[in-house]
């Protein structure tokens, strides 16, 4: 097309073999010695971790520990000073903005406070990516929007504006928006901060449902320990009547939710919920108490 070209063409189409290699059990997000500093302030110092497909990684840490920065690095909203970042089979740390657009097609992000577009209705917010970026037909978009709003139990709010929703409803709509395009990875940035405990549990349950029913790999950034443990220690099951119940997770499921504690830009702890709870490390004990 000469002067007029489609963006994102720099990311090559994958072979079936590569798709298979990126299937269950394979790493879907890899950080290798990633460092980032703003002027003299070190945000991340050689942070390394791996997220396995279908698993959950829960980032804990004090405010300013670099938790949200990790999500922005995965999305390509920030670039690292050093280190390598692999997301869904692509090395993204050197990607341009146009190349990142192709990677973001498989990513969903739930921002702090939701970050819903306040000039659009709930329907338009949730269907934004499908309609505006994926150019799906309107009836197909509406069907999917109703499906995801049904999944999070907010179908009745479809034509409301974000300003007419409560804090918890806004977070849940943000989750619906992030999952509408069926991403492989969902990133949650403080999804329950500022919510009352009962509303926070409804958000936690949406995270569990997406993990257990949609097999979405997730990274949850939070400093709400109660919510972090709720997500790691519970599983969603569909009852014969079609309703969904939340039960204590079995050993295998619990091992698929890993905690990672950041302290002053470094990884201070990495392990399961049980390992975190039984740790004798003074910093962890202080954080957990």
């Amino acid at each position, binding site marked *: 097309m000469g002067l007029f070209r489609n963006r994102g063409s720099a990311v090559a189409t994958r072979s079936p073999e590569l798709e298979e290699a990126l299937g269950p059990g394979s790493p879907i997000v890899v950080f290798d010695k990633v460092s980032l500093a703003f002027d003299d302030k070190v945000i991340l110092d050689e942070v390394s971790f791996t997220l396995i497909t279908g698993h959950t990684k829960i980032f804990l840490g004090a405010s300013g520990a670099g938790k949200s920065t990790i999500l922005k690095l995965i999305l390509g*909203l920030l670039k690292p000073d050093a280190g390598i970042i692999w997301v869904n089979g692509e090395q993204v740390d050197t990607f341009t*903005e146009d190349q990142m657009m192709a990677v*973001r097609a498989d990513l969903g*992000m739930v*921002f702090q406070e939701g970050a819903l*577009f306040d000039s659009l209705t709930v329907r338009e917010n949730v269907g934004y990516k499908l309609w505006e*970026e994926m150019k799906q037909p309107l009836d197909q978009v509406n069907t999917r929007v109703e499906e995801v709003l049904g999944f999070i139990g907010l179908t009745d709010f479809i034509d409301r504006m974000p300003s007419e929703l409560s804090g918890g409803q806004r977070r849940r709509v943000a989750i619906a928006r992030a999952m509408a395009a069926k991403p492989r990875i969902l990133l949650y940035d403080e999804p329950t901060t500022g919510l009352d405990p009962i509303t926070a549990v409804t958000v936690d349950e949406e995270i569990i449902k997406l993990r257990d029913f949609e097999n979405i790999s997730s990274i949850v950034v939070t400093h709400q320990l109660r919510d972090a443990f709720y997500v790691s220690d519970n599983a969603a099951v569909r009852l014969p009547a079609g309703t969904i119940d939340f039960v204590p997770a079995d050993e295998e499921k619990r091992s698929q939710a890993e905690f990672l504690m950041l302290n002053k830009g470094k990884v201070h702890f990495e392990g399961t919920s049980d390992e975190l709870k039984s740790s004798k490390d003074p910093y962890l004990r202080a954080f957990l108490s």
Partner: protein
Amino acid sequence: MIEWIKAALLEVQEYLRLVAQTTRALFTRPYYYRDIVEQFMAIGMGSLTVVLLTGTFTGMVLALQSGITLDMFGARSMVGRLVSASMVKELGPVLTALMVTGRVGSGIAAELGSMMVTDQISALRALGSDPIRKLVLPRVLAGIIMVPVLTVIADAIGMVGAWIIAATQLKIAGSVFWNSVVLGLFIQDVWMGLIKPFFFGFVIVTIACHVGLRTTGGTQGVGRATTNAVVAGSVAVLAVDFLVTKLLFVLMY
């Protein structure tokens, strides 16, 4: 002082980067046609009332002031000539641009600034939309096209305002006034009056977008961004007016 210079240079660098990205977005897909049409409506139709009022009153006061002065030399019939030359070459483009800066520049900075501080710009990028293509390019296109259109409207309504004063206050016959209007205009003046608003539209909108997209610091930051967009936009309009006028004098006269 060195810190201030460094900060100023950084602002200029970031502004030029935004201009380069916008230029690139103009020639590469995708385009957000619905947003482009919406911005043409918002910037063009939305500014019509204020531009009509500004143009009318400017033309009226110009006729009134110049009528009194010209009367002292027995040249009352030359009012149309003075009004047309002033409106088309200078007052129409500059006053329209300043009005658009106040109305549109502040609106763009506030809207984009609010989107920045509430993470909506990051959400837009996360959902696969480039904010330059989705938010900046439609506004820049609307500014470049609609400011000249608004200027022509302001020029025309300004002369109508002047004619009303000429007819009712100065008792100049309509035929004399309109003949004088035509005599006062040269083709170079018309070109100058048409070319300058393209530059004004471009600087008003790009500065407002740049300031809006660099907003930090919550609601206080949004307020600061809005003020900065209007102040920087207004000064830029006057500076660009001088530079383009000088350039056009060299090229056309």
